[in-house]
């Protein structure tokens, strides 16, 4: 099995080496994410579902990666593992040089707080809280004081051009505005990775493009972005596309090469 995973197609030899290096010691500091032989199985009422069957993935700082795949391919599970919401049954996961795969619940919570900014398809804002308070939340759990928290939350909201909407509740905002609040919330703690799960899934095409421009500009500013999507139009914005199939990486390609192939796969 491990033989197979090493044989799995990797986009570059550097990445293969990063994965191979993770047999106990931390990978170099340029590597934000390194997974080695990640397996995740679920027991669905007696039936074992193998969502991930040995995923090796290495992502460098400042990369803009799309994870694609049909439903049931394991991309959501991979996102949950990368996002430290879930832990693998087997394999190793290094996030920013720290071995996440063996962490306790509280340590994982700390990692989610400091290292990861989530953007969800359904926005997942607290309905009764204002935009400002929603953005403040990660800082609350980081233990940042009230004044500093408000300052940084305002700053994050103005980064996504929502200066005038800080005191609005989610139901007073449009879908695109809500998603920008969510992006501001994801960015407010300066995370190592911005992890987006179908961020345009609930948005119309115009708004989708607007949101994708936000991600693009963040990526241009050096933010590491990982985006899970089944939509090739969305994936096209990324500079690297990883395709999952049946819990394994089926392809991992740079944008230029991938775009040419899109016509045949989509």
């Amino acid at each position: 099995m491990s033989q197979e995973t090493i044989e799995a197609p990797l986009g570059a030899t550097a990445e293969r080496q990063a994965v191979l290096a993770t047999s106990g010691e931390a990978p170099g500091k340029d590597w934000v994410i390194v997974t080695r032989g990640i397996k995740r199985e679920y027991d669905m009422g007696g039936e074992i579902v193998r969502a991930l069957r040995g995923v090796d993935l290495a992502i460098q700082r400042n990369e803009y990666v799309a994870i694609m795949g049909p439903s049931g391919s394991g991309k959501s599970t991979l996102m949950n593992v990368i996002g430290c919401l879930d832990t693998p049954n087997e394999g190793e996961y290094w996030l920013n040089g720290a071995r996440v795969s063996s962490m306790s619940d509280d340590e994982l919570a700390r990692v989610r707080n400091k290292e990861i900014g989530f953007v969800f398809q359904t926005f997942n804002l607290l309905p009764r809280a204002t935009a400002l308070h929603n953005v403040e939340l990660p800082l609350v759990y980081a233990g940042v004081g009230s004044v500093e928290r408000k300052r940084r939350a305002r700053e994050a909201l103005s980064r996504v051009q929502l200066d005038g909407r800080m005191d609005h509740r989610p139901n007073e905002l449009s879908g695109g505005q809500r998603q920008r609040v969510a992006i501001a919330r994801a960015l407010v703690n300066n995370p190592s990775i911005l992890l987006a799960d179908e961020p345009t899934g609930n948005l119309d095409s115009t708004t989708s493009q607007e949101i994708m421009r936000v991600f693009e500009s963040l990526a241009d500013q050096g933010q590491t972005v990982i985006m899970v999507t089944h939509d090739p139009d969305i994936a096209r914005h990324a500079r690297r596309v990883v395709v999952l199939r049946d819990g394994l990486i089926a392809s991992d390609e740079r944008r230029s090469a991938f775009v040419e192939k899109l016509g045949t796969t989509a």
Partner: protein
Amino acid sequence: MPFIEAVRLALQQIWVQKLKSFFTLLGVMIGVTFLIAVVSIVGGMSRYMTEQLVGKIMAVNSFELRYRPNINIGDHDDNYWRELRRRPRIKESDIEPVTSALPDGVLWAAVGNDNLAASSRYVSKPKAVNAFTVTDDYFTIKRMAPVSGRLFSPQEFERGMPVIVIGQDVADYFFPALDPVGRELTIRGIPYQIVGLMEKQGSAFGFSFDKFIIAPHKSPINRFVNAHGVIDAIMIQTPSREGLLSAQETVRQVMRARHGLRPSQKDDFALETSDSALEFWNKIKSYLVIAGVALPAIGLVVGAIVIMNIMLVAVAERTREIGIRKSLGARRRDIMSQFLVESATLSTVGAALGVATGFAFAKLIAAVTPLPAAVELWSVFLGVGIGAGVGIIAGAYPASRASRLDPITALRHE
């Protein structure tokens, strides 16, 4: 998450769902209301007993020599009562030996007391009055003074003149809209001239202390109040609390000698202090406190169950919120404390309302019934403390359930 932040969040949550929150905290509120009301009333009665009532029944630093106690506490068997009946009475002839043994500065008064019918020419119907016959120092010991007229002169005491001083209720009944001083009240066919009207003594639990008449010990009334040569009590007051015990011991030795008691025999007379009266009250109070704690406890248990139920609903309703918070870095203990603080805040708000309504309730009872009420500061802290405690206990299980939710499942929750 900082504590203040959590409380603010909880208050916000309560405010958003005002009506639901109100019903939730109703149980705790009612429980605390009754607790505070009972504590206030019992406290008020207690204060009244120690400061007022006992002082009225018995003077400060004083005791009474009686043939049997006026106040009998607790369960006593037939033997006890039989023994009381066999006791010799206190006699006129005991006064001199007892009082001459007391040190200087100690005041004493012989007291006789009975209910007698009285009549006046201004009211057609006779009425019973509480008649006392007393010796000189009685008014000094009891610190009673007239509001109009005067007390008895030494001659009136000495000669046993038919003069009396009366209480407010007696004046109001027998001399409506008249000044009673100088008028006559007839008791057992003998007219007594009223020389003084005494200041109001007040009442306790609906019993007035102003239905008395007081006559000199040697006045004709003594025949009806005291049988031949017998007196009800000798009241003895020492200048300080310290002298009380030794004075009691002196009286005890004199009386034991006079009754010819052997060392093995028990006293066959009573030396009653205000402490005995208080002891009686404390006994009643302990029952009141048990009832006063048991009843609110039921309210609090119901309140706790309601809060637990509502918190479980809140956890279910806000599963997604919990998922979001966890994805943003909330640890188990953050979620736990959020829900604990919320239920504690809910319950404490209920308790605070209960404290307010409890005091209002106690004041209302004090206003419409003879029961007094006293606001005890410690009961405020007790009430609010109980509120917080109930909230924490009731919130523990729901909060722990919330904290153990799996973030992925919680996030997918609709």
